[in-house]
């Protein structure tokens, strides 16, 4: 009796400490997500209003609501150049970030993102083949990109399953198979580029580097539709994915059968990545960067929503840099993400125990 009363005060203190720590841990993701949303809004504002042609916020609002009294030039620049690029950037970043984080979560390996694994290259090769060799455009290219990405995903599953070794070795094998497929598909793309005339080749080259400049309003609408449908579905799957990450047996036990969950997530990622690639080409490393960056922000927890937001912020800011960092030179966004992403991947290699 005396024992419990004397122990009561410290115990209550301890319970309080645990409770507040839990509350802090629970509120951190919320705060990070809020911060990321604000950062994204800021990035979009920077992208649409600043640059070599500055538009005031008041003018931008007036253009959007269709009011009179705005300079014609401002309306054209905003509606035909800045706003579409910012929107495509947001959509592409969301899709790539979410897709990358999902793959990294499924493979339990930060290196297993759709771009490292060759999914984006599959979409690109199919799209370029359709564009240049078959002379297709619009929907045909989008469908081809989807088929290309799906084919690579299927090949990855079939080829990295393997008879030898345990399932734990599968991510390693899958990454190397993806690197091989990427190399092969890259050479197919190069071959297609050779067959095109130089103007077509230049166009294809810009697209292949990953560019937001070519997006038209119908394409943006299509991409927005895909993201609006697939992203919430993917987020809804993420809780089950986290359970699957704990191990197949445990996942079965708590009612998240691994196979259907993985298949659904895989299909959603393929759709997101393919739709993005069809519109703006393979934007290098965004899918790969977003996951680990979000994880670091969240203090070690992986979150598909946070990764999607990180992806969007990265793409929009990278596009702003690509457009205005060097005067008179309007680079595709992929040049910047590639330049930032490559050192990041190298750095990550020296940090993470990637082979375990």
């Amino acid at each position, binding site marked *: 009796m005396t024992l419990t009363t004397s122990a009561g005060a410290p115990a209550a203190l301890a319970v309080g400490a645990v409770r507040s720590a839990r509350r802090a841990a629970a509120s951190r993701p919320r705060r990070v997500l809020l911060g990321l949303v604000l950062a994204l809004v800021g990035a979009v504002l920077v992208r649409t209003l600043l640059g070599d042609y500055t538009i005031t916020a008041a003018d931008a609002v007036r253009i959007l609501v269709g009011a009179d009294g705005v300079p014609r030039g401002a309306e054209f620049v905003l509606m035909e150049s800045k706003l579409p690029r910012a929107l495509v950037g947001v959509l592409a970043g969301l899709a790539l970030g979410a897709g990358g984080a999902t793959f990294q979560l499924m493979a339990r390996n930060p*290196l297993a993102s759709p771009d*490292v694994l060759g999914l984006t290259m599959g979409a690109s090769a199919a799209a370029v083949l359709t564009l240049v060799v078959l002379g297709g455009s619009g929907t045909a290219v989008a469908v081809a990109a989807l088929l290309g990405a799906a084919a690579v995903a299927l090949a990855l599953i079939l*080829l990295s399953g*393997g*008879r*030898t*070794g*345990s399932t*734990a*070795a599968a991510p*390693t*094998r899958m*990454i*190397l*198979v993806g*690197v*091989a*497929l*990427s*190399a*092969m598909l*890259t*050479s*197919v793309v*190069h*071959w297609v*580029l*050779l*067959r095109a005339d*130089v103007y077509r*080749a*230049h166009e294809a*080259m*810009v697209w*292949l*580097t990953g560019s937001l400049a070519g997006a038209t309003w119908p394409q943006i609408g299509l991409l927005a539709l895909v993201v609006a449908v697939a992203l919430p579905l993917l987020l809804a799957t993420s809780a089950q994915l986290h359970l699957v990450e704990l191990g197949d047996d445990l996942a079965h036990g708590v009612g998240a059968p691994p196979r259907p969950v993985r298949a659904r997530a895989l299909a959603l990622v393929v759709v997101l990545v393919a739709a993005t690639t069809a519109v703006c080409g393979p934007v*290098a*490393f965004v899918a790969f960067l977003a996951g680990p960056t979000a994880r670091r922000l969240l203090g070690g927890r992986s979150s598909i929503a946070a990764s999607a937001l990180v992806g969007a912020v990265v793409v929009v800011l990278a596009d702003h840099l690509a457009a205005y960092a060097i005067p008179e*030179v309007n*680079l*595709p966004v*992929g*040049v*910047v*993400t*590639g*330049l930032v*992403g*490559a*050192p990041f*991947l*190298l750095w990550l*290699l*020296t*940090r*993470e*125990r*990637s*082979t*375990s």
Partner: protein
Amino acid sequence: MSRRRTWLPLGVGGGVLLLALVVSVAVGSRTLSPGELLGGLRAALDGLATDPSAGVVAARLDRTAVGAVVGLAVGLSGAAMQGLTRNPLADPGILGVNAGAALLVVLGVQYLGLSSAAAFVWLALAGGLLAALLVYAVSAASPGGATPLTMALAGAALSAGAVSVVAGVLVANRGALDTFRFWQVGSVAGRPASLLLDVAPLLVVSLAIVALSGRVLNAAALGEDLERALGQRVQLARATVALGAVGLAACAVALAGPIAFVGLVVPHLVRLVTGPDYQRVLLGSAVVGPVLVLLTDTLGRVVMPPSEVQVGIMTAVLGAPVLIWLVRRTGALR
């Protein structure tokens, strides 16, 4: 017995190489009858341009010579890299050496106005060396050490970064793109044999280093503990061999552009016959490398008539399945 096991495969290999050389001259997108071929060959060797098939034969002779040298360089380079890094997936393409070399060549074309292979080769060497050093340093600094996976990924990251820079240069310059898109695929077509003279100094030195590196590579295969026990001169020898291997890759890039997967596949094919002794692997790679490049190049000329598929594309498309097979066969690849 031992002599026979050395000489018989070597004799067969030499015969196949001869056959590949002949096929490379005889077969192409334009079909020549044996008579036309011989007439063209005689006219081409006499330097007469009057014979209608002389031009075709002369072009084929040039690309055969360049292809054979590129195959030799890439095959030996791959064998030396696999031995040095004890990595069955080492290859100038996978380790980023080709990308580093290509990057500096593009920058040289764009900003220094260089246009000759004699200048390309030194830029390619510098770029290749930087890339090799960076890839090895990054993978050695990773927690798991310099495993095949970390090396392949570091190489892939470096290649992707290099591609971004190259794209940034090319997008702003349509003229450079028109040149570079033909160079970036890796091709031995339209490369005059006189290019070989431009790269000859580096080629000869690197060839000599790598050809004599069998003992060093065999020592490297024994593992790092034993090597450390052997001391400082082993480090120097390894560094020299690495320089030679990158030098060979740089020559190949300067001659033909990046040729993927040949350096990976050749030593594995050779090992099926010779076993692990690197003195034999090197000798075999020197034979099989040219054979592989010549045969894939010839195949590329006829696979999709009337146009040709460049040898770099053929090797990438045919080589990737081999890489996947190797990855599967070696299992977990720790």
